[in-house]
């Protein structure tokens, strides 16, 4: 049997842990449930605080070819000269080679944010609103319940990263306000299946799931539902959650 102290020690050490013994204690102890909610709310603030804005990396990735890189270990002036050369080579490389696919970057971003999948309870209006506000958007009542929201750095821009709960399980939605696409495209990468939809004048949205067996049609239906629930600008029809 687990005691309150033991439980709280474990929760403070790992708030997103899913040990069955912890879950059993949480299910039967109201005080510890409330304690967990407070710790999880604090954890969300902590994660947001840790995500300081970073400069875009596209211009300064340091490698062109392996030979050029060796020069960077020389003297300071040599290193500066090599850096300039490398920067030129990289700039040319980035210009001439295709940018990594948007879908691959979305999946890579997802993999770096495992906490996003672990919460299932709906966020309060106070938790959700600031994230949406930064993208000048809100959600109308048709939107599925949002269990995670964060303003994330994606390709050097801050975008909303949401997890909504669907009958098929959690669905990640990234509102890519700075990424325009000409048409909808589906992807299946590293166990994630999803779609990227254009939103005229507002970039695009990426919608993806990792539930095995999810069909493309199901993803499309969820994506359409989310897209139609987004309200841009300062519409008065917005209902706060």
């Amino acid at each position, binding site marked *: 049997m687990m005691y309150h102290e033991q439980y*709280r020690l474990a929760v403070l050490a790992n708030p997103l842990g899913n040990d069955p013994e912890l879950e059993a204690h949480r299910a039967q102890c109201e*005080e510890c449930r409330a304690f967990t909610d407070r710790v999880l709310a*604090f954890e969300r603030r*902590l994660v947001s*605080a*840790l995500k300081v804005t*970073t400069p875009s*990396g596209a211009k300064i990735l340091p*490698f062109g070819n392996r030979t050029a890189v060796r020069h960077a270990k020389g003297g300071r002036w040599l290193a500066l000269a090599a850096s300039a050369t490398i920067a030129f080579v990289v700039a040319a490389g980035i210009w001439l*080679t295709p940018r990594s696919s948007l879908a691959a970057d979305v999946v890579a971003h997802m993999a770096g944010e495992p906490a996003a999948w672990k919460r299932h309870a709906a966020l309060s209006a106070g938790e959700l609103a600031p994230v949406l506000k930064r993208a000048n958007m809100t959600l109308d009542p048709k939107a599925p319940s949002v269990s995670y929201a964060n303003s994330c750095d994606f390709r050097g821009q801050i975008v909303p990263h949401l997890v909504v709960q669907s009958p098929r399980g959690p669905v990640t939605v990234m509102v890519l306000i700075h990424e325009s696409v000409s048409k909808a495209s589906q992807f299946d990468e590293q166990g994630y299946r999803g779609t990227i939809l254009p939103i005229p004048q507002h970039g695009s949205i990426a919608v993806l799931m990792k539930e095995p067996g999810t069909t493309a049609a199901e993803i499309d239906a969820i994506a359409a539902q989310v897209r139609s629930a987004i309200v841009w600008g300062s519409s008065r029809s917005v209902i706060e959650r």
Partner: protein
Amino acid sequence: MMDRVRAKQGRARFQALCLALRPDLLRFAFWLCHDHALAEDVVQESMLRAWKAQDSLEDEKAAKPWFVTIVRRELARTFERKRLNTVNIDDLVELEDSSLAAGDQTDLAEMRAAIFKLPEEYREPLVMQSLLGYSTAEIASELNLSQSAVLSRLFRARHQLRALCGEDTIGDPKE
């Protein structure tokens, strides 16, 4: 010809990997060294090292811990090479405030100031867990600690942080 195409594809894949991981690596370095410019230098140098050693990365799925290890070593080398000036945390927070406080998120600025005040031995595992999504076992392996030592540090980190942020810690357990 085929070799050149393969090399070009390899470079594009590596660039994509670096682009995807770079923001979190920069943040990780920043939370350890308290300095945006130094964090950029360290991550830049780490990527050079990673690029040269990319053959040792057998599985792209393991890229994140692989890069994190390189960044940690590069930071250690940097600290060894030059004795970095010590700074007053309050001055630092004030200086960094404009870049740390995004827009109207003053509570985040307060939280960031509190994170800086944590001892490094607590801050590092906390950043690895909460920012990078590391498991206890992964943190233990990276920091060469036992899992119980990691859990103990994580508990203390959050307990101290909550207190520094004015949270109600009456219900927090005693270790």
